[in-house]
């Protein structure tokens, strides 16, 4: 298969490094508005050609798969152009600014018998895969409640989201900079709580001097299988990203920034011993995770982007075999329908 990429910035490095390792996939071209950025990415990752005009690239290369890794506010229009050129599309999150745009992408993909895959990559990180397996095996019983919480200092000095000089491109999206992270939160809630029946978002601005319309977000969701609470905080410290699933027989917490999975079970021992056994398990898990985290940092490779690499690998594998990709169209629609409800009432950028 011939692959091409539009937008040679930070996240493109992960896409290109992963594509370069896939058997049977040729990186045919890279495109960026900056000639230097396109040229160096092509040189670094062995692309045959580079372009500064994505339409010229699509026409000259006729790729099978196009990766859209440009800034978020142009994902939709670039994905439309790639689908119109008859390509499958792997698009960074958010694939679209609204559910209506997401549906339009799906309609265009369906019309051309192509796939559009949004990078809901944390679904494929090891702790989440293990958590999903626990749920499938019924180890936690029936799911009751899901908590997805991201604490990330996007207001720190030097953060592109809080650039005092020019506004970050995400600020035009409903929800502002937090909208850049909502697909992660929403896709995890969707995966564990199911399609939503009702959802409400609460948006707050704790730092009045920040350029963001909101710097705190909370969401409450009633899903088909469980309820979910979503949190994005720019102020809570330290940085963390956790998913906790509480079921009728146990509770499991997956850490994503510092990967780990801690399981609290109802054990077949006298009740007073349960906290002690769960505590021992948690301690062992924390020590093992700290060691693995250090090895991960020293060993290079995808690090926290392991889920993205896995998603891309599985997507190419599915496309090659004519199967449904791992993030399907139903999920793309469901996640963006949830995001639409969560951002209803979010303040716009001033």
């Amino acid at each position, binding site marked *: 298969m011939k692959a091409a990429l539009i937008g040679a910035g*930070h996240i493109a490095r992960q896409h290109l490094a992963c594509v370069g390792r896939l058997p049977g996939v040729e990186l045919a071209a890279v495109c960026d508005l*900056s*000639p*230097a*950025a396109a040229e160096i990415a092509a040189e670094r990752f062995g692309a045959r050609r580079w372009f500064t005009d994505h339409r010229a690239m699509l026409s000259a290369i006729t790729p099978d798969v196009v990766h859209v890794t440009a800034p978020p506010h142009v994902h939709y229009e670039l994905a439309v152009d790639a689908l119109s050129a008859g390509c499958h599309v792997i698009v960074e999150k958010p694939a679209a600014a609204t559910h209506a745009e997401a549906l339009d992408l799906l309609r265009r993909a369906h019309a051309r018998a192509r796939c559009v895959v949004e990078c809901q990559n944390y679904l494929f990180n090891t702790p989440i895969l293990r958590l999903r397996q626990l749920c499938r095996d019924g180890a936690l019983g029936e799911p009751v409640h899901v908590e997805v919480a991201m604490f990330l200092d996007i207001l720190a000095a030097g953060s592109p989201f809080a650039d005092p*000089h*020019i506004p970050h491109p995400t600020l035009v999206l409903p929800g502002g900079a937090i909208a850049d992270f909502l697909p992660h939160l929403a896709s995890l809630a969707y995966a564990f709580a199911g399609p939503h029946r009702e959802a409400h978002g609460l948006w707050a601005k704790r730092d009045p001097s920040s350029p963001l319309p909101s710097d705190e977000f909370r969401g409450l969701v009633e899903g088909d299988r469980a309820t979910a609470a979503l949190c994005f905080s720019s102020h809570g410290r330290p940085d963390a990203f956790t998913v906790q699933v509480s079921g009728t027989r146990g509770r499991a917490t997956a850490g994503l920034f510092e990967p780990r999975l801690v399981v609290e079970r109802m054990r077949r021992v006298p009740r007073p011993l349960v906290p002690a056994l769960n505590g021992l398990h948690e301690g062992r898990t924390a020590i093992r995770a700290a060691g693995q985290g250090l090895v991960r940092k*020293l060993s290079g490779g995808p690090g926290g982007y392991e889920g993205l690499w896995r998603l891309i690998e599985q997507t190419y594998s599915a496309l090659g075999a004519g199967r449904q990709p791992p993030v399907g169209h139903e999920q793309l629609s469901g996640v963006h329908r949830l995001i639409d409800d969560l951002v209803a009432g979010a303040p716009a950028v001033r």
Partner: protein
Amino acid sequence: MKVLVTGAGGFLGRHVVRALHRRGHDVRAMVRPAGRADFPDSPSVDVVRADLRRTEHVEVAVDGVDAVVHLAAAVGGDQDLQFATTVGGTERLLAAMKRARVARLVLASSIAVYDWERIGDRLTEDSPTVESINDLDRRGGYTVSKVWQERVARRASERDGLALTVMRPGFVWAAGREPLAGIGQRLGPLHLVFGPRRPLPLTYVENCADCFAAATASAAAAQQTLNVIDDEPVSAWRFTAEYLRRSPAQGRRVPVPYALAVTSARLAQRTSRAAFGESARLPSILTPAHFEARFKPLSFTTGRPRAVLGWDAPWSFEAAMDRTYDRPGADA
């Protein structure tokens, strides 16, 4: 001559504005939209608020100038952010200059572009620079950005007939901007000085700024590359002693032979690669390519600015130290 200075609100930029002003040029100081815009030593300076990431901003900034001194660059952030800011900004500046028919550019590059692993014992303007993508990636984001910034400027110069001068300053220093990262490693109260006798490629900020100002108006500087390093050799050991004696900083110097330090870095890399393969990562001080770029003992030729510009550094090391630490905050 009307000169646009990008990055005018920065550490070197404020001094370049002053040096150009002193030499009688009309200066347009480009500062970022929310950046500092006060130039008390140069009251007649024309301030333009602009961001190199916005084409429309850059077009306003270059309109009506005769020359550009391009200092703005990213010094922090990840490699891709540095590249987008520094190289992308330079691309936009070059395009705007072409449209506005501005044909003179003085570009602030860095001695970071040199391939320190391939240089024997003396660094000159003709020493090899880092070229291959693998070597660039081993050296990190700042070097990648500076090499590519030079590359796009030289291409524009060849293509559009731009009169280009590439300036490669050494360690630009002033109060609070001492080149400690190029001297060694601090461990609590101890200042480990790697290769204590090696000369440092120092340039006192006012000397460096004056050299930029001299180059801007010099026809002979067109198509030249100039290392900007002060004449007087100052060892890492001596600089640290003066710094500890004159500044409020505390601590003791500990000499560490260069051979011992670089061997430690090589051993760390070998061990890491044995454990994790070629993709292994280490802190930069334990990465031999980074280590050599920061600490390798070399001597430095300083004659080309004199030969091309007829320029001599106004301040000796001793005088620069006096100006720096006897006037606290003067260079902040």
